[in-house]
């Protein structure tokens, strides 16, 4: 799978294997998340996967109290934008914190990636969702 094309579909397939990956340009080494097919720096086609450490720091966060229809059952929950150690950034849910105590969540705090199974209508339709926990 790591040799597959750096599409958004394959990103999810890698997540299902519990691998968090970004796309990397083999010519200029630019690292891109979300993954891209064309290098954002030199525009060359043929980027490749690079697995990420999953370690990062909180850039900003919010607690969603009023959610959209699809996610209404989960509220309140925490959404964070994280800066990963590799210098890229990602939006994800933060678990393992009390959503009713925003004062306990700090910008700059360290977090680590984890993977959560979201059950589908049948076992083969379950997908893995990327989540983060306090480090």
């Amino acid at each position, binding site marked *: 799978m790591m040799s597959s094309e750096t599409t*958004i579909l394959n990103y999810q397939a890698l997540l299902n294997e519990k691998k968090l990956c970004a796309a990397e340009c083999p010519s200029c080494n630019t690292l891109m998340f979300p993954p891209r097919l064309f290098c954002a720096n030199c525009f060359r086609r043929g980027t490749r996967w690079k697995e990420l450490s999953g370690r990062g720091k909180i850039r*900003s966060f*919010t607690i*969603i109290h009023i*959610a959209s229809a*699809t996610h209404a059952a989960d509220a309140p929950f925490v*959404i964070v934008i994280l800066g990963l150690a590799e210098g890229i950034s990602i939006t994800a849910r933060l678990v393992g914190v009390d959503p009713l105590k925003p004062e306990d969540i700090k*910008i700059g705090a360290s977090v680590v990636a984890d993977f959560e199974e979201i059950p589908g209508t049948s076992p083969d339709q379950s997908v893995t969702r990327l989540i983060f926990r306090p480090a």
Partner: protein
Amino acid sequence: MTDPKDRVAVIGIGQTKFGEQWDKSIRRITLTAAGACLVDAGVSGVDIDGLYVSNTSTSSFSKQEHQAALAADSGGLLPIASTEVEAACASGGVAVRHAYMAIKSGEHKVVMVVGCEKMSDISEREIAETLMSAADREWEGQIGATFPALFALLARRHMVHYGTTDEQLAAVPVKAHANAVNNPYAQFRFKIGIDQVLRSALVADPLRVFHCAPISDGAAALILCRGDLVEKFSGEPIWINASTQASDTLALHSRPHLTTFRAVKSAAKQAYAKAKVEPKDLDVIEIHDSFSIGEIIATEDIGLVEKGQGGPAIEEGYTAMDGEKPVNPSGGLKAKGHPVGATGIAQVGEIVEQLRHTAGERQIEGAQIGLALNLGGTGSTAVIHILNKE
């Protein structure tokens, strides 16, 4: 002085009252605004040779695509060239820019721009879902982020970085409501207090219900005219001296800074250069305050105040009606209402009223130059118009 033939003026404005209008169809709302606009401009339908229509999601809100053709038809403007543009909440501003370019190209002479949105036909959670599709579904929507949440992320970062306070955020809707009292088209014509804002329910921490623009139905229209033809019509012309647009990544996490809108800075810089004005020359400003933090960041990014001073500025009344730089005399999106596709057009409409000196009790005395900033998504699109009385 530029040849009038190379200039573009707004010669007519019209809008419906914003708010919930279950009893009126989207056609009726659109026609009401368009009709008012024709009367204001002293233009008849046969004079119009181009139509630009803006809305965000009639397919989801009203199960209707191809809104441009529908508007041409129900407006009696057939067989006019009619195009719909979409750029989320910036659809209206982008439509104005397309009309401006169409006239500048020589292809059209008198163009109508009309924006409409009817949001209240579906449930609030469905609306949230639809609006969220203007953010990056793959990286933001799927994990449950909402639009208030994305702006909350900006707000949190701004608070930590610049010391912006809950009270400063709350001052934005308080000012908006105070201004809307004098706007007959506004959805909420009543004052609110800081305490009310701070006590309202949390939507996405730190943003509360009163930090968010409401769900609204409504339409707004403008008529733009080539400069050498304005004498033919009775509407007082207000000149468009700059029309600029810029974009940024759809997903917030792809941006290096979470306290600024790069697209706004870029569009503003280009607009000031084109119009040959500076922020200090502006007499009246309409800004996209879909969430209160949006107004604070935007006042900084268009250069009204230094970076990080947006919070103190609102708190000290710098942007109030009687302040140095009045922002959102209309009541803004928060209190005037925010039928997304109509917003950018109504903003330009407000500037035109102010520069014509016909804004009644909310008139800013002697206003000569105004700016309208319309934002799409979380600042993925920014459109700026600078208008001048001369």
